[in-house]
């Protein structure tokens, strides 16, 4: 596979995935906050094709959970009656990207049967729906925060590396200060200064700005290094000799050299930021219940009881692995492609 094909493939996968995330309301059979208190930690619903009498059905169906008065989940099903899977069913209302209201879901089953493709969590909420909705927050926040970090990094690292001298000193010492600060305590202080209720948008902005601002120092150092070496290259010195301005040199010759570093940084930062959100949520700075986020979905795995008893709670983590692999593949292909293009 050429780099171009690899890039096209991974871009297509990412686009398709983003689409599903964007239209989470349509693909998710339930609302992310809907609790079913009779089915906490229900295992993933099995789709059946053969019923109890041995008859084959072309259309898949599910069984309803057995009505039990037991206090803990048993995951038993009542196989007397089957509930076929329906397509394009009306259900709880939602909006697409916060704009277009709708009630149609891709699939669903009649009550009292439930379809939990990825099982249910401690409150009997559908993990699959929560995974899709969670992506809306995590992926976007992770991406924007990574871009923010890297942008500040380019600015600070580029200026520091190119101009050197006292500017370099100030910017890099400032960066070191950021690396050395005890963030945990600073975040406590930030949380204490903020009002207790913050709207979802504010939380989102807060997440992005906290993650973006904390993370700029490392990319800035890397970029400074690249710029330092790039500005001494012969073709840069030649261009300077011909009278090129600083802005032109930076834009045309120096910053493009940092391209590879930038891409690797972004791809490394996105997954890191998805996990950073777990910590922020613990400090009261993340999205609160019942809003899902990937960080929140992963954080339930921190409990030993969940880890050792309910394998389906790993599914969000397992789904994220191929996603990030595609992410890295795309970055890799971009970088290779860039290398092979003659300057």
């Amino acid at each position, binding site marked *: 596979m050429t780099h171009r094909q690899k890039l096209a493939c991974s871009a297509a996968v990412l686009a398709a995935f983003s689409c599903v995330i964007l239209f989470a309301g349509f693909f998710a059979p339930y609302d992310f906050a809907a609790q079913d*208190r009779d089915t906490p930690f229900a295992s993933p619903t099995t789709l059946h094709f053969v019923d109890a009498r041995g008859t084959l059905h072309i259309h898949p169906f599910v069984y309803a959970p057995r009505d039990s008065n037991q206090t803990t989940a048993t995951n038993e099903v009542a196989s007397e009656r089957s509930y076929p899977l329906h397509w394009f069913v009306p259900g709880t209302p939602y909006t697409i990207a916060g704009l277009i209201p709708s009630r149609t879901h891709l699939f669903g089953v009649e009550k009292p049967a439930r379809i939990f493709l990825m099982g249910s969590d*401690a*409150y*009997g909420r559908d993990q699959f729906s929560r995974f899709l909705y969670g992506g809306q927050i995590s992926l976007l926040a992770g991406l924007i925060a990574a871009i923010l970090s890297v942008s500040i990094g380019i600015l600070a690292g580029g200026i520091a590396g190119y101009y050197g001298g006292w500017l370099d000193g100030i910017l890099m010492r400032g960066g070191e200060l950021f690396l050395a600060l005890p963030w945990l305590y600073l975040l406590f202080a930030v*949380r204490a200064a903020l009002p*207790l*209720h913050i709207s979802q948008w504010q939380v989102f902005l807060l997440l992005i700005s906290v993650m973006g601002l904390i993370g700029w120092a490392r990319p800035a150092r890397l970029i400074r290094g690249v710029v330092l070496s790039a500005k001494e290259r012969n073709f840069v010195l030649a261009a300077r000799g011909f009278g090129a301005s600083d802005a032109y040199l930076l834009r045309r010759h120096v910053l493009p050299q940092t391209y590879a570093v930038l891409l690797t940084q972004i791809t490394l930062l996105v997954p890191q930021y998805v996990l950073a959100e777990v910590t922020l949520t613990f400090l009261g700075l993340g999205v609160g*219940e*019942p809003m899902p986020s990937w960080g929140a979905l992963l954080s339930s795995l921190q409990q030993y*009881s969940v880890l050792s008893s309910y394998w389906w709670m790993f599914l969000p983590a397992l789904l994220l692995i191929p996603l990030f692999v595609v992410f890295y593949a795309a970055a890799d292909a971009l970088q290779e492609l860039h290398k092979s293009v003659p300057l």
Partner: protein
Amino acid sequence: MGKFRLWRTCLVFIVFYCACSAARALPPQQSGEDRMIAGAATGHAGGRLVVALRSEPKTLNPALALDEPSRDVIRCLTADLIHINRGSLKTEPSLAKSWNVSRDGRQYTLHLRRGVRFSDGQPFNADDVIFSFQVYLDEKVDSSQRDLLVVGGKPITVVKLDDYIVRFELAQPYAAAERLFDSIAILPRHLLQSTYQAGSFSQAWSLSMPLNQFAGLGPFRLKEYVAGQRVVLERNPYYWKADRAGNQLPYLNEVTFLFVPSEDAQVIRFQSGDTDVLSRFSAENFAVLQKQQSQKGYHLDDLGAGLEYNFLFFNLNDPGANVPPEIAKKHAWFQDLRFRQAVSAAIDREGIVRLVYSGRATPIWDQVTPGNKLWLDENIAHPPRSLDRARELLKSAGFSWKSDGSLVDPHGDHVEFSILTSSSNAQRTKIATIIQDDLSQLGMTVQVVPLEFRAMVERLLNTHNYEAAVMGLVSGDADPTSEMNVWLSNGETHLWHPRQEKPATPWESEMDRLMQQQLVTLDYSKRKRLYDRVQEIVAEELPVICLVSPNILVGAANRVGNFRPAILVPYALWNIEELYVQ
């Protein structure tokens, strides 16, 4: 009163009898010592018990220890004058072999055991008692016990009558006075007096001190401390209790406390057999451990409801005149009893029991849990969850619903508030999340805000900058006097409106009167009636909306004998002198 005294006389008699019979069975060098005879089955001497602590003890100084790990270790090293038996929840003689109360209930005369020695071999007598109480009552030491020892606004006075008789004088009669002595460790005067007089008592008995500086009257003494890893205790050869066969207690040679920082890690260590006893763990982990119970050689006990009660409460502090209208309107909702009743009616307590505690908890409607059988008011109503009733109550309070189902107050403002929880307590955060969903069915918008524990307490008790919170309290004792601070309107932990100068509401002033009165009433049934009324007020006025009481869950390796867990702190190791390993 009559019954009370009769019981006490019987007890004194039994103890006297036991002491006499024990003296015969003791080895000759121990004669002259007033041994106490423990009631448990006879075990084997020797062996080692390993227990995990959540963190390193901060200090071994009984006057300064506030954290649970420190207290757990100190309990093994020290002894008190009168002890609450965790099994029976009643008082029993400890270092005081008997005591009598003056007719007016203000003077307690305690007769101390003779021939008792500290773990370094030095004798114990009334001077140690006088010294210990002098330390605890010293304002400069700032001990946590001081509050307990101030009765009716005046500190208890302690008088030495002779080397083995001490008299305690109280400013007013005090119903649970005997229970006060529980867990007040007697300190060795010969080791600590010089430090105390030099004014450096607050540095005494930190873990970094040499081991020969420590001595106590408990079943064990300090053997080794490895920073960051463990504290090892060894058998105290001078301990003053014996078993029924006359063998000196404790049975165990050594107790090792390992520092294991998280609950999950403790569960894993217990499961793999690294530790012998486990307490304070969640119902989910109970279920995990239960699966391997038979193969792994341990057993688990569910003791039923303990004394912990979890509740939701609203900020009922006086907001003052200069608050912004958006905060004032919320205070108006919270102050309305019908609003609080509607919230209480809408909460699915059974759902909390099932989802948060896997069924190992009991729904409650007032502060006394079913575990506290002596004080539970059976007549408190247990209304089931009813959204219809909640809607009616809201309607009668002037609330209404918009077409999209959201609840608005009489001024047309949407009902929206936040619930604080501690982010380190997964159960309470889960409770809040369930309440959030319950109340959304009434059209309220509720946000759950988990905060770091200290940040939350700061808001609740000092800045009052919050709207509602989910909290839990666990009393150290079943007696209502241990909760004076919570129910008195001027109390430090009168959570919904602490430190009032005078009671803000008629029911709070009634509660103050009842609590003060039960404190000085000596007759149990009269006190019970007074405290029943307090429970009724809590259930009617809902200053705190009580939700669930989790069960006390403990586990122990099968090889541990005499293991008799109790619903009082410390759930598992309270009778450590009687524990043995097979």
